[in-house]
């Protein structure tokens, strides 16, 4: 039953891709979107059955791929990722109806989006090295095409695609190398055979495989320092694709680390997981800081993805480290927190990207410095963006709060570990969690406050309109899920706990008491978000009652409107408003050593006196310092090496023949 539903789930988007490529213009959007949505529902049903019953299924088909065949199986760990992708995919499919009509989506774009979705659903179910690598590469390819989409002539998009292609292929090569090494040494390429033979492998080999896999998967997840493609590709992609990339694709990087590190290699050594936790801490801090400094709405969201992936990796690393110390209860708790945060991040971040897409479509820009006042022009989008932004800022009662609290609790309880190295990692983790909390709140106050409140800063923002109903419905699905998981997290958590036990080599005992809040019996910690929300609602109710009994209730309900305070002048223009750049300026100044902003201030003085300025021009660019310091020199070296190599082929046939001859000679000498 679950297998059938899952297979329908993967094939329906494939059929949708065919429809998208073949149907005439008027019908292809709706046809492809509806079929993808059906596929997502079917995949959700299949994955849901595996999650709830705990019974995995396995299929093998020798016909589809020659030589190796295709192995598909879905265990609870994989099913969780399929379920998350399916929910995000459902919302994105719904949204793409309106979005495609707005943006005049071409044939390729309409066809590639469902194909990308199908590969995302396929990867967590692949259960042999060949199947996994095929699905992984298909995902890379379709996402690259989807990224290029209808904007392939824009130089920024081409640039982003180049970075993405290079990074994803370096990553894929590392994963391929690691997994092939593993398959060759364990006498079979199916994941079951590898897991069964892992004890026969030497620890250095296992460590080597893990590090290779970590490089590949961390680059897909966007962990610092392998994140450079993410803040380029996610903003440049069309918004439904951005939502799928941030809400579903980066998750699969985390999935890969868990699948290889825990399930295939059995947990390994402590330092593996300390490395993962270190990647997490760095990414969380770096991502949150850039999000707080950013002024481009979608780029801000992309950096915040780096931040949240960092928090998830922190939880995964803590879980692995605690497991190596032999504490299964706490390891299970940390992994539970990581997986729950991953799911929550998928929900609010894809919702935020979709809302950002609606803004971009309505105003033609995603530069916060040119937006403003959108809460009145696009009220529904503003509310939905607000729900996502408050969730990601971990406001109590939101799903982000529930999972960040769990993560905090996991780290705090982990201090009981005996290993000093683990304790140090957890301390760094708690500090990073605390700091990113403040920075994320700043970033999203900026995004809401500058983007949606205040006065419009440009003509485009002044003439914005709310998004199409189908787009709002897509965002609405995600917002409802965020609120539900935030108010009653206890309903979903037992499922996540089962997955966490499944994802850890050797399992993990139960730590949760049943209920609608979160009650960690083993760890003496509990929160009850429903009660907090009830308390807040009670205050709102009291305020409403107070208004009724006030001396002038009508006046309170419809307050008099007045001019804003302009220091005595009745003149207030949007040019006096604070911009996103100036909002972030104090924070940028505090963290100037990490951000290294590139700024340029030019003052032209009046001829009459130096004390009067004729014109002032200010340029600022906060690019990725890591990219400038670590990547550009490498790229420059490769380019100069390429220039050197270009001198070798000069068009002379004789020279080429000589090369061929020399090569044969070398091969003969080496083999002989």
């Amino acid at each position, binding site marked *: 039953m679950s297998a059938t539903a899952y297979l329908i789930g993967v094939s329906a988007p494939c059929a949708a891709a065919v429809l998208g490529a073949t149907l005439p213009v008027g019908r292809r959007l709706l046809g492809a979107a509806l079929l993808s949505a059906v596929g997502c529902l079917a995949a959700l049903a299949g994955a849901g059955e595996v999650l709830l019953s705990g019974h995995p299924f396995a299929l093998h088909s020798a016909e589809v791929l020659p030589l190796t065949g295709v192995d598909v199986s879905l265990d609870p760990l994989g099913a969780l990722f399929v379920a998350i992708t399916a929910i995000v995919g459902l919302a994105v499919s719904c949204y793409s109806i309106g979005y495609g009509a707005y943006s005049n989506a071409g044939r390729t774009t309409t066809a590639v989006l469902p194909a990308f979705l199908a590969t995302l659903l396929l990867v967590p179910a692949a259960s042999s090295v060949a199947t996994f690598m095929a699905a992984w590469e298909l995902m890379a390819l379709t996402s690259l095409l989807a990224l290029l989409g209808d904007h392939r002539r824009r130089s920024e998009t081409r640039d982003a695609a180049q970075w993405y292609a290079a990074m994803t292929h370096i990553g894929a090569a590392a994963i391929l190398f690691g997994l092939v090494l593993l398959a060759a040494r364990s006498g079979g390429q199916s994941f079951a055979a590898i897991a069964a033979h892992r004890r026969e492998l030497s620890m250095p080999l296992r460590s080597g495989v893990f590090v290779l896999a970590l490089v590949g998967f961390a680059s897909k997840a966007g962990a610092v320092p392998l994140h450079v493609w993410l803040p380029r590709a996610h903003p440049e992609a069309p918004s439904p694709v951005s939502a799928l990339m941030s809400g579903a694709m980066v998750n699969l990087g985390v999935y890969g680390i868990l699948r290889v590190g825990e399930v295939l290699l059995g947990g390994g050594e402590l330092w593996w997981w300390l490395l993962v936790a270190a990647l997490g801490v760095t990414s969380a801090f770096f991502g949150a800081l850039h999000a707080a400094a950013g002024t481009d709405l979608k780029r801000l969201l992309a950096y915040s993805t780096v931040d949240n992936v960092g928090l998830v990796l922190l939880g995964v690393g803590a879980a692995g480290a605690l497991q190596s110390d032999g504490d299964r209860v706490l390891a299970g708790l940390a992994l539970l927190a990581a997986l729950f945060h991953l799911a929550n991040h998928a929900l609010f971040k894809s919702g935020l990207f979709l809302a950002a897409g609606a803004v971009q479509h309505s105003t033609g820009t995603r530069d916060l410095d040119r937006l403003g006042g959108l809460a009145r022009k696009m009220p529904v989008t503003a509310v939905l963006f607000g729900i996502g932004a408050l969730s990601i800022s971990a406001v109590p009662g939101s799903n982000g709060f529930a999972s960040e609290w769990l993560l905090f609790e996991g780290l705090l309880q982990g201090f009981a570990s005996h290993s000093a190295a683990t304790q140090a990692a957890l301390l760094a983790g708690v500090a990073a969690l605390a700091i990113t909390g*403040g920075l994320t709140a700043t970033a999203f106050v900026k995004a809401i406050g500058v983007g949606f409140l205040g*006065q419009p800063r440009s003509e485009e923002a002044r003439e914005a309109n709310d998004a199409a109903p189908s787009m709002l419905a897509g965002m609405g699905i995600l917002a409802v899920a965020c609120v539900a998981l935030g108010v009653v997290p206890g309903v979903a958590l037992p499922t996540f706990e089962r997955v966490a036990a499944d994802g850890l080599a050797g399992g993990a005992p139960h730590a949760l008491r049943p209920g609608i809040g979160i009650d960690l019996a083993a*760890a*003496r910690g509990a929160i009850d978000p429903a009660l907090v929300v009830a308390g*807040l609602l009670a*205050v709102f109710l009291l305020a409403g009652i107070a208004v009724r009994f006030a001396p002038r209730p009508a006046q309170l309900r419809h307050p008099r409107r007045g001019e804003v305070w302009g220091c005595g002048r009745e003149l207030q223009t949007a040019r006096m408003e604070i911009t996103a750049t100036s909002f*972030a300026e104090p924070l940028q100044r*505090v963290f100037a050593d990490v951000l290294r902003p590139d700024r340029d201030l030019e003052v032209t003085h009046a001829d009459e006196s130096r004390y009067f300025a004729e014109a002032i021009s200010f340029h600022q660019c906060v690019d990725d310092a890591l990219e400038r310091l670590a990547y550009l020199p490498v790229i420059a070296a490769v380019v100069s090496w390429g220039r050197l190599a270009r001198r070798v082929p000069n068009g002379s046939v004789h020279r080429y023949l000589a090369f061929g001859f020399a090569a044969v000679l070398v091969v003969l000498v080496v083999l002989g």
Partner: protein
Amino acid sequence: MTSGLASLAVVNPALAERAGVSALQVGIVLVGGPLLLGLMGKVRARAEGRVGAPITQGLSDLRKLFRKEAVRANPTSAVSGLAPVVLVGSAAVAAAITPLVSTLPVSAGGSDVFLVVYLLLMGSIALALGGLDAGTAFGGMGSSRAMTVGAISEPALLVGILALAVQARTSNLPGIVTASLNHPGWLASPQRVLALGALVVVVIAETGRIPVDNPSTHLELTMIHEAMILEQSGPDLALSTAGEAMRLGLLLGLVANLFFPWGVADSGSGLAVAIGVFALALKAASLAVLIALIEVSTAKLRLFRVPELLAGGFVLAVVAVTTGLVTR
């Protein structure tokens, strides 16, 4: 409200007792916050050789503001009306679940360090969004500065309390207070001294006192909190002012009970609660006097030096946790 509690007392006496304690705590913070502000003003005035306003001035101001006409700026959205209510609401919920008078607030199990800190953050977010809503230069500037200060001080608050949580091995606030009552030796432990230093810095920053912010100035070069509420008037301003005062009362009460837990009631009986109220008032007032004296004796820091002070507080908090781990 009273009849509701009475009927609850019949159904579930223990829960009614807890709900009663929570309601009492909210009431104390609501009234006590403005009184603490008045006390700090009085101490400052006396130290500067002035008579100063009466201690109840804050309450009178609130009464006056609540009666005034509500005026909102032209370009504002619903956020301007919501923000002050959310500020008060988050402070009230935090006051209801924090062990101020008794370790038995409603839902003692859900009274968590992380929750209280993030409820405060929720209030800060509401206030900052309210500041940006009118689209004025001052409001945005205030929000930007407040969020910058908050982005460093709230983590310091969290990590500072964490030092105590590590010692008590729980993040449950009543659990921490009870554990420190049972282990008097802990009170002088090095990590507590370090954490107290960090938290004093945080309280000064969070409540906008000198040397971080000057509550009695409207100078655009320096103001933080006042800039955010510049567009508010009448009941909106009253709610914001009350919310800020509640946050001050809550923070002082929380720090007082975490570091000097004597007198906190461990039951809902009348006498124990009365002692709890008295002890809370005494401890919070002493801390308020201490902060007022710090205010009188220091000059306001330049805005861009403030993060250095706060980063110092954060580092102090991290050192406190490390000390706790090493000496555990």
